[in-house]
Structures are given as structure tokens and as C-alpha cells.
């Protein structure tokens, strides 16, 4: 009897040490996205939000680089948040919306349409940046299942050690620094600030399209997104942000416009309609792919006004909770901006 108890205790201890070690190893080898490839932190930072949002922006780098929620609040009192990530695919945006709706219902959802060109999952690394940051739930499971590329398996999302186990050969100081410590925020409600100026020197030359239309798979996901918004009383706004690279084809533009017309949605092509006054000589940080902070503020100033006028969004300035939240955020925002300049 005594021996059996000793055996049970011994095995339990061994298992506890084993799983403890696996947990520690998982934390060590999983990418931290704290100092390098910080885009990988954007999706998870949403869960640290303290106040609700009237506007939710979804999409790829063209949203997290090009819109500044700080400006939207400062100028119009519009509360917003970006749930953007690198090469965010349309079904990922859909599931991020579903995930957001679990905790809040924004009045307006803005979706950047560039990723509609992708009918299939593209890159495992980008998948990870979007999906690893999502909280577990039906939405995350759906997003993973829709996004897996060949060679990926669901289990590795549940146990990241199965995916990142070989990173032990490339561990850096960053991995040890944030082994058990959470990195501070890298974004401003999903906005990733870039301060440098690298003017666009060339006009992008489009390659001929094999199929002039946007893939039906993507459009089906967009339809699902429109339906979800409708069911929740949310206004869906489609945008093509002013980034000129990669090239946005007129054929694709026509498809999105037809979709918007058919569903009674607003579609704003900001390359075509440069009412914000974006100047690709001064407002871009990488030759037209993304806007720098000057460009993002310029664009947000114009877009905030459009949103407020069109959807009557409430000015939350003066409300204590929002002022406190945005006050702290703005201080950090300005500090980084100064540092960058």
C-alpha cells in the first residue's frame, strides 16, 4: 500500500515536472514579437483594451499602418480600434469580427479590401502572427481551420511547442527577456507607428492579371462579413487605403464597387479619391506601401470627419473613462512620435 502511494506520488511529481518544463519551454521558444516583428503582437493587444469602440478597422498592414485611432479621438472624439495584422486574409478578418462581437458591438466596421485578392492561405508565418494572438474560442478555431497552409496542423496552434520547438537554435536575448515577462504595448489601439520618410519614387507597373476578377471564395467571405454586420446592426464600410503598392487593379475595384452597390454599402477608394491629401513624397515610410505617422494622421483626420458625418458617431471627449484611456495613450504616442522625429 505504502509502495503504491509512493509510486503514485512519484509519477505525479514526474508528470508535474514534465508538463512544467514543457510550459516553460513553450514560453521560451514561442516568438515574442516584442522587439522584432512586432506586428505579431497587434491582434493580442486588443484584449488589453479598457474602453469600448465605436469604430473597428479590420484588414492587413494597410490598416494598422495607415490609420491613427489617437487622431480620430483627438480630432473628433471617435473611439476606434484596429484589429489588423500582416497579410490578414478576409476570413481572418471575418473571424476577428466574430471574436470582437463577443465583447462589444461597434457601430461601424471598416474593412480594407486589399486582401480580397487572396483566395487561399498564403503564408504560415503571417497566419501565426494573426492567429496565435487570438483568444481561444469558436472564432479562433474557425480562423485556424480556414487559414492553415499545407503542412500545418491544428495541434500546433493548441501546443505552440510543436511548431516552434526548433527555434532553440535561434533564440535571442529578446526570448529570454520576455520569457516570463509580458512585453509592453507596441501599438496604439492597433496602430503601429512608423515615423521615417521614404518617398515613392516610381509608379507601380501592374503585371497582367490571369483572372481579372477577385476570387469568389474571398467574395463569399466578404458576403458573410456583411451579413454578420447586418445581423448585429453594424454599418460596414469598405475601403481601399491609399497605399499604392501593391497595385490595386481597376478590375478589382469594379468588383468591390459592384459588391458594395449590391449590398448597399459605402466603398471608398482612397487612391482614387485623395481628399485626405496624401502625398507619397512625404507621407510614406516605404515608398508607397505604408503611410508614416504624418500620412496616417492626415488620412485619419479626413476619414474621421467622413465617418462622423455619415454615421453620426458620438464625440466621447470629456467622458472620464475615455479621456483617461486616450490621455495615457496620447502621451505615449506623442513621445514615440517625438523620438522618431
Amino acid at each position, binding site marked *: 500500500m505504502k509502495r503504491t502511494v509512493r509510486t503514485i506520488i512519484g509519477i505525479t511529481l514526474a508528470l508535474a515536472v514534465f508538463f512544467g518544463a514543457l510550459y516553460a519551454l513553450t514560453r521560451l521558444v514561442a516568438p515574442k514579437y516584442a522587439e522584432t516583428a512586432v506586428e505579431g503582437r497587434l491582434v493580442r493587444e486588443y484584449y488589453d483594451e479598457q474602453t469600448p469602440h465605436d469604430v473597428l478597422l479590420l484588414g492587413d498592414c494597410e490598416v494598422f499602418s495607415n490609420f491613427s485611432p489617437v487622431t480620430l479621438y483627438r480630432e473628433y472624439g471617435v473611439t476606434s480600434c484596429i484589429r489588423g495584422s500582416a497579410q490578414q486574409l478576409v476570413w481572418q478578418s471575418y473571424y476577428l469580427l466574430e471574436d470582437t462581437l463577443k465583447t462589444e458591438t461597434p457601430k461601424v466596421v471598416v474593412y480594407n479590401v486589399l486582401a480580397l485578392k487572396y483566395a487561399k492561405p498564403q503564408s504560415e508565418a503571417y497566419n501565426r502572427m494573426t492567429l496565435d494572438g487570438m483568444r481561444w474560442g469558436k472564432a479562433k478555431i474557425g480562423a485556424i481551420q480556414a487559414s492553415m497552409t499545407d503542412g500545418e*496542423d491544428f495541434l500546433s496552434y493548441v501546443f505552440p511547442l510543436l511548431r516552434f*520547438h526548433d527555434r532553440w537554435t535561434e533564440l535571442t536575448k529578446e526570448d529570454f527577456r520576455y520569457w516570463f515577462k509580458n512585453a509592453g504595448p507596441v501599438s496604439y489601439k492597433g496602430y503601429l507607428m512608423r515615423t521615417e520618410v521614404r518617398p515613392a519614387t516610381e509608379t507601380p507597373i501592374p503585371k497582367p492579371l490571369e483572372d481579372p476578377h477577385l476570387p469568389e471564395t474571398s467574395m463569399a467571405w466578404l458576403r458573410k462579413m456583411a451579413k454578420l454586420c447586418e445581423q448585429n446592426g453594424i454599418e460596414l464600410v469598405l475601403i481601399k487605403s491609399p497605399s499604392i503598392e501593391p497595385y490595386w487593379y481597376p478590375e478589382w475595384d469594379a468588383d468591390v464597387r459592384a459588391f458594395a452597390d449590391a449590398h448597399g454599402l459605402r466603398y471608398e477608394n482612397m487612391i482614387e479619391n485623395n481628399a485626405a491629401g496624401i502625398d507619397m513624397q512625404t507621407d510614406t515610410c516605404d515608398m508607397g506601401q505604408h503611410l508614416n505617422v504624418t500620412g496616417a494622421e492626415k488620412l485619419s483626420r479626413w476619414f474621421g470627419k467622413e465617418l462622423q458625418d455619415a454615421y453620426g458617431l458620438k464625440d466621447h471627449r470629456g467622458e472620464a473613462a475615455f479621456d483617461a484611456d486616450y490621455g495615457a495613450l496620447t502621451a505615449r504616442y506623442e513621445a514615440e512620435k517625438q523620438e522618431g522625429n
Partner: protein
Amino acid sequence: MQFTSWAFLLFLAVLLPVYYLVPKRMQWIVLLLFDALFVCAAGTLGAVFMLVTIGTVYGAARWIDALFFRQRSRIAAMKQTHTKEERKRERLRFEAKRRRVLIGCLVVNVGILFALKYGAAIGRLSATLFHTRAFGSELMLTMGISFYTFSTVGYLIDVYRETIPAEKNPFRLALFVSFFPLLVQGPICRFLDLKNDLFTPHAFSDERFLKGSLRIAWGYWKKLIVADRLLVAVKALCARPDVYRGGVVLLEMLLYAACLYADFTGGIDITIGIGEWLGIGIPENFRRPYFSKGIAEYWRRWHITLGEWFRTYVYYPLSVSKPMRALSTKLRRLGTGVSRRVPVYLATMLVWALTGAWHGSNPTFLVWGLLNGAVILLSEECKPLYARFHRRFPRLTKSAFYRGFTVIRTVLLLSSLRLLDCYSTVGDAFSAFGSMFTTWNWNLVLFGGIQSLGLKWTDYLVAGAGVLLMFAVSMLQRKGPVRERILRRGPVIGVCAILLLVGTVLVFGRYGFGFDAGQFIYNRF
């Protein structure tokens, strides 16, 4: 379903509780159902071929059994009424009938294996010779067919020889043929060895479970940490015989030796471990082969079941067959040495040719088999010379140094022959081997060359440590099974050993995204 896939682990995780929770008399049925699932998951074509094998072998074995029964009844009835001569004639008539049934069934089953293995090669040859379109495809070779065909052929011959009675229940025979752990890369089992364990009820035993788990964990360790890692470098080296020459070929030989050992023994460890989980004893296929002091000894310790199969069902029957005896008699006038040797040599070379052919349709395998046979026969011929050397230098030949020398010599010899397995043409293999003596490029091996083979220095470090551990375990095995020594220290130590192996596989194993899901090398045979 590969052993290294998550699907397979899930398959085991479902099988094990179901196997032990159902009434014990149903265990073999559960196993058969899971076998069917495993076979179907590998492809319906494979399942069809397997059904053909099961059906034909079952029918032929029962027919042969019935012929024995009828023969005995008939002879017994003839005892009073017929002469001895007439009874003998009747017996021979029945024997001939049985032989026809046996040969007919062998033709069908070996024919399927031959067609699948050589179909593509014959198609290519006919296209070259007759300028027709090539037919057949390498992909047609279905999982485990080489292994289960040999097992069933063995079973049929055993029934024919009356070593065992024919199995009456076709589903039981189906279980023997389709037993899933054996389908990936053997071992080639005899019905006699498995029958009791397969159909006897088993109660769950935690001791057996721990033992099996330790073996399985060790198998995965060897496969995922050592074999799959080294295979990357081996593949890179084999792909460019024009570039990697000289000293690099020696490196390739050694890497492939370690890789193949870790891969094949790792797979067999997993197979035997699963057998232990289910209470089914699967015969060992290796006995520390790289500790052999000669090539004949090596072949008694490497892929033991294949060697035994060829000895039992090809070599011995062939050696004592009528044509061989006739040949021996004819050669008697050339001396007893010649008349004794030639049939043995012929049988040996034929067995080795078949062993080579079993490995694949590429001529490199045939040459590999024949060279193995030739080296074995040469060693046999040199035995008196060795004996004289041993008598002349007794202290030297008993020393550890000499033993070490013979072991290294055997490993190098085998590794040289294995170059034929690495390259796609015999010419490339010989040219690579020759270049070791003509191209002096050790700087390429030692400085930077190995970095270009798709592995990082950390990979070499891990693989090196893995090889050292495998070597250490083999050394310890000389004093008895290591697993039993670990488990004798109590279940907690056993669990710790398993967790340590699993933990290191999880961290250092080559699996998951970005790595090729590595099938076992022997699975392609």
C-alpha cells in the same frame, strides 16, 4: 497513415482503450477492425490487393489441408486392399495436387508483388526496347505489400509442409496478414510465432504498458532526432554524385549507416512497443548489428526476420532440391570440395540476388545483393586463412584492438556496399566509391562543406549526441536489455525515462511545419 503522423498517434490512443475495454474474446476482432481502418487509410488499392492475398492464401491453405486429410483417409482405406506401390502412387498423386495448389497461389501473390515492384521498371524497359509508351507506376507499390506477401507465403509453405494446420477462420488469417504495426516495415513474422498472441485474450498490464511505452519512445527518439536529421544531409549528398566526391563519400557512407540504423531500428522499436501494448510478442529484427565482426554475422543480426525467411523458404529448400543434388553428383568427379561448394554457392548467390531484388527494381539493388553474397562466400573461403592468422597471433586476435578493428572493418565494408542504395545508377555508386581513393578533399569535409548539406552545426551536434547515445545503449545492451534494467528500478524511474525521451523528441525532433514528414526508409521496399 505514417507512424510519425498525429493521425497515427490518435489511432493508437483510440485503439488502446477500446482493445482493453471490450470483452476479451472480442479483442482480436477489434484489432482486425482497426487493421482494416489502417489499411484503408493507406489507400483502397492496397486494401484490394490485401484482400486478394487473404482470399487466395486462405483458400489455398484450406485446400492443401483438405488434400492432406483426403490423402490420409484414402491411404488408410487402401491399406487392406492395395499394394504398397499403389499406395505410394496415390500419395504422390496427392502430393502433386498439393504442389499445384501451392504453386498456383504463389504465382498469384508473388506475381502481384512482382507486378507492383517491377511493373514500372518493365514498362520503362519495354519503352526503351520497343519504342512504346511506358506503362506502370512506382506509386502503385502499396504499403506493406513486400512484408505481408512474404509472411503469407511463409504461412502457405508452412501449411504445405504440415508445420502448421491451415487456419479455419478467414478473419483470423486476415488479422495475421493485416496486423498494422507490421505493415510499415516489418518484421516479417511467421504465423506460428504470432498466432497465440494474436488470438489469445490479454488483460491490461501496467508493467507491459510501461515497457512498450519506453520502447516506442526510444523508437521515435531514434527516428525523429537522429534518422530524419541525418537523412537531410544524406539526400543532399546522394543527389549530386558529380559534386560530392572523395572524402565526402566516406562521410556520406557513415552518415547513411547511422541514419539507416536509427531509421530502421527506430521503426522496429515502435512496432515491437505497440505489440507489447497489445500483449502481442513481435520478434526482434536486430541484435546490435554494428558490433558484428564479419559480414555473415552482420546479416544474422540485421533484418533478422528477412534473413530467416530466405533461409527457411528459399536457401534450405534450394540447397537440398533435386537439381542441386543432381548437380552435386555430377560435379563429384571434380573433387568433393567442388561438388560440395558449387550448389551452396549457387543457392547463396540466388538468395542474395532475390534479397537485392526484394529491396527494389533498380539494378543497384541486384548488384548490392550479389556483392553481399560474393563477400560472404569470399569470407567463407578465407576462413582457413583467418584460422591460420589467429593461430599465429593469438594475443593480437584476442585483443580489444583487434575486435574493434574487425567491427570497424565490417561497418566500412557494409557502408561501401550501401552506396548502391544511395545512388540511382550502379555507375554513380562505383564512381563515388572509387573517388574516395583518387580525390583528396578532406578540407571540404572538415571546413564548411558539411554546412552546405541543409543542416546547421547544431543539427550535427544533436545528431552526433544521438549517435553516441545509441552507441552507449548498444554497449549497455551487451549486459542485458537496458529497458528491463531501467524498469527494475521501479515504475517511477520508468516513467521518468519515458518522459525524458518524449521531452527531448518534442524539442529536438524533426517534425511539424517546415520539416518533411519522414516515412521510414524500409517502407519503400
